């Protein structure tokens, strides 16, 4: 979309709108015709609206289903709004699952895990981008290879290691194996490589060391990439299921995704859907809040310097 179309029309001293003459307009005439609005809607807004609906509708459906009876969920008739909205499903879910304890466990594991992961990713990426050391390329390729290996492959070796160190059923046992993040290192390294080198050289001339350059120059300039990695890491830690399941041997150490299995019946149970949806809402809500908080950093960073 042309920038001129999105600018707020300026006003002259008298406060009247300055007319944009077609002759003086820098806008391509082909998009200012009578069908420019329809083009804008079809080419811009409509795909955005469709994309939003694809993302939002399942979440909305989940939230509404948690307020319905199972008969309103399992039916051929489309029941959009519950006839008698009720929190029964939430009460049933909390009777089966110790949400406060599980929530606390998940917050602890996610907060510590995500922060350490992010710090390691930032520092590793900085090293790969700006430091010269032997075997740098080889190590980076090894990280890329690690990115391609499914997590299931490391499950047994990780278990053997953590069990040997006495970490079964401990918070650190849940957190430790996931701390090395190939994805974060790769993404941030690619981002750091695109930063203007002269800014860093100027900082070096001013006597800034590696930490100074990293935290005063590189990190502020890479806010969107760091926020993206942070968000992905938080979601990843929060949703992690198989490792916390395998390494915990006591329900008091379980994280939310593991605890939610208590709401699921291996036998088909059509009556369980509202309770499952209620549980899903409880798990998803914190991540949505984190996303809403972080997305402004992503957007702000992406638009930085876009307009002079």
């Amino acid at each position, binding site marked *: 979309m042309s920038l001129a179309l999105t600018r707020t029309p300026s006003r002259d001293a008298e406060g009247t709108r300055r007319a944009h003459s077609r002759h003086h307009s820098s806008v391509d005439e082909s998009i200012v015709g009578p069908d420019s609005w329809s083009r804008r809607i079809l080419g811009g807004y409509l795909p955005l609206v469709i994309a939003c609906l694809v993302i939002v509708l399942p979440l909305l459906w989940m939230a509404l289903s948690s307020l319905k009876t199972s*008969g309103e969920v399992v039916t051929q008739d489309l029941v959009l709004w519950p006839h008698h909205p009720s929190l029964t499903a939430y009460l049933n879910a909390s009777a089966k699952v110790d949400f406060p304890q599980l929530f606390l466990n998940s917050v602890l594991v996610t907060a510590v895990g995500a922060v350490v992961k992010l710090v390691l990713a930032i520092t590793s990426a900085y090293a790969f981008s700006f430091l010269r050391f032997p075997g740098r390329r080889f190590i980076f390729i090894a990280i890329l290879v690690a990115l391609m290996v499914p997590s*299931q492959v490391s*499950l*047994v070796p990780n278990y053997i290691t953590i069990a040997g160190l006495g970490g079964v059923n401990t918070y650190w046992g849940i957190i430790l194996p996931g701390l090395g993040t190939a994805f974060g290192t790769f993404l941030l390294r690619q981002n750091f490589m695109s930063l203007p080198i002269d800014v860093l050289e100027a900082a070096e001339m001013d006597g800034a060391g590696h930490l100074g350059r990293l935290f005063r120059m590189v990190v502020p300039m890479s806010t969107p990439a760091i926020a993206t990695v942070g968000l992905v890491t938080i979601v990843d830690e929060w949703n992690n299921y198989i490792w916390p399941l395998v390494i915990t041997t006591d329900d008091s150490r*379980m994280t939310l995704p593991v605890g939610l*299995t208590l709401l699921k*019946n291996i036998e*088909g149970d*059509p009556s*369980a859907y509202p309770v499952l949806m209620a549980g899903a809402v409880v798990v998803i809500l914190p991540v949505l809040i984190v996303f809403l908080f972080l997305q402004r950093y992503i957007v702000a960073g992406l638009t930085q310097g876009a307009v002079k």
Partner: protein
Amino acid sequence: MLHDVSSAAISRRSLLGLAGLGAGAALLSACSGPSTTSAAGSASAGATGGPSFDGVTPAKTISFWSNHPGSSQAITQSIIKKFKAQSGITVNLVTAGSTYEDVAQKFQSAQAGGQLPDLVVLSDVWWFRYYMQDSIIPLGNVIKAAGLELSDYRDGLVADYQYKGEQWAVPWARSTPLFYYNKNHFKAAGLPDRSPTSWEEFATWAPKLMAVKATTKAKYAYEIPALAGYAGWTLQNTLWGYGGGWSKRNSFDITCDSPATVKALNYFADAVNTSKWAGVASTAAIDDLAAGACSATIESTGSLVGVQKSIGSRFQVGVGFLPGGPVSTKPVCPTGGAGVGIPKGIDKANQLAAAKFIAFLTNPENTVDFSSATGYMPVRKSADTSSLLEKNALIGTAIKQLDVTRAQDWARVFMPGADQEIAKAVAGILTQKADTTATMKSLRSTLEGIYTSQVKPHLN
């Protein structure tokens, strides 16, 4: 109580070696669940009844790993409470996931790294892998020491866990498939209020059910349970009725490409692709029945309570025995669900305490309470089911059907990953119109490959 069976210290070299082995094993397991290879070697030969328990005193605390089949956590906890009051033994109930595959993943990892439970849920398709890994004990001696008498358990259910003259698990959360039908739809079609005696009979009923589609709003007369789930389980019913099966009875001799099996599968292939009175469920057929989208389906007895709760007063659900076939009308109902077993490599005191808990968990009174809460079958002959029938008359049909059940085909339950291969093959036939004979021939070679590489080396 957990048991550390790993060495106290890990050397760097052994750690790297184990990591390499673990990576290889996990890579294989990603395809078909945890593998059957074991450091302990293959299963021991000769029926011994397991280790001796003379002079052993039961431990005071044990752990029980369960996926809470049938949403059974609350009822299991209440049984545990009663057990503690009676015996003084504390049982820690640990959530080991939601599926039997989750339990397997956790149990396999524990064997590699060392913190084993004292009691673990063993599903119909998993216990034999543990036998081959030599990771569970034969229960003969330990249940004798715990004062448990197997003769009171339903014969068919106990037999499911027997191999080479040994008992490897005790039945607990046991189910069978049931024929579920929408009574209102059947009435509208002028059909009798019962399940069909044979699949041939249902083939004559199906057009009548389809004829009243406008009234009933059903899309299909019958819905085949989701293939990605346990297709191999419910389809055994039709295969047996036609004189076929995934393998010969109590044998590893694969018969999935026999004319009888092909004929049975063609019955459904025709129903789905030609006559179009049957559909294939994408997730859970029982949900579609509850929604009124199909008139009949086959599902586990464990779904009964949930279905009744969900439909409320919208319509009446009926249940009946599984239909027979042209060759056999009974027994054509496979057993299913899970039992409980005791791991190897833990203290005898804990094994004995676990056996005492098994005896209590599955005693006549508790098996009825468990059935009432979950919809699973009472596993004891002497169980007084009158209270169950009072509460839910339909469960009586499921209990009666236990007398005409048959142990599952070994090709399905004793071969790692066979269930997924069966599901893939059946999906090809029913949803992609693949040639039945060719698909089953291909499945046969796959299953024989699994037997040769993953089962045969562990049998002696």
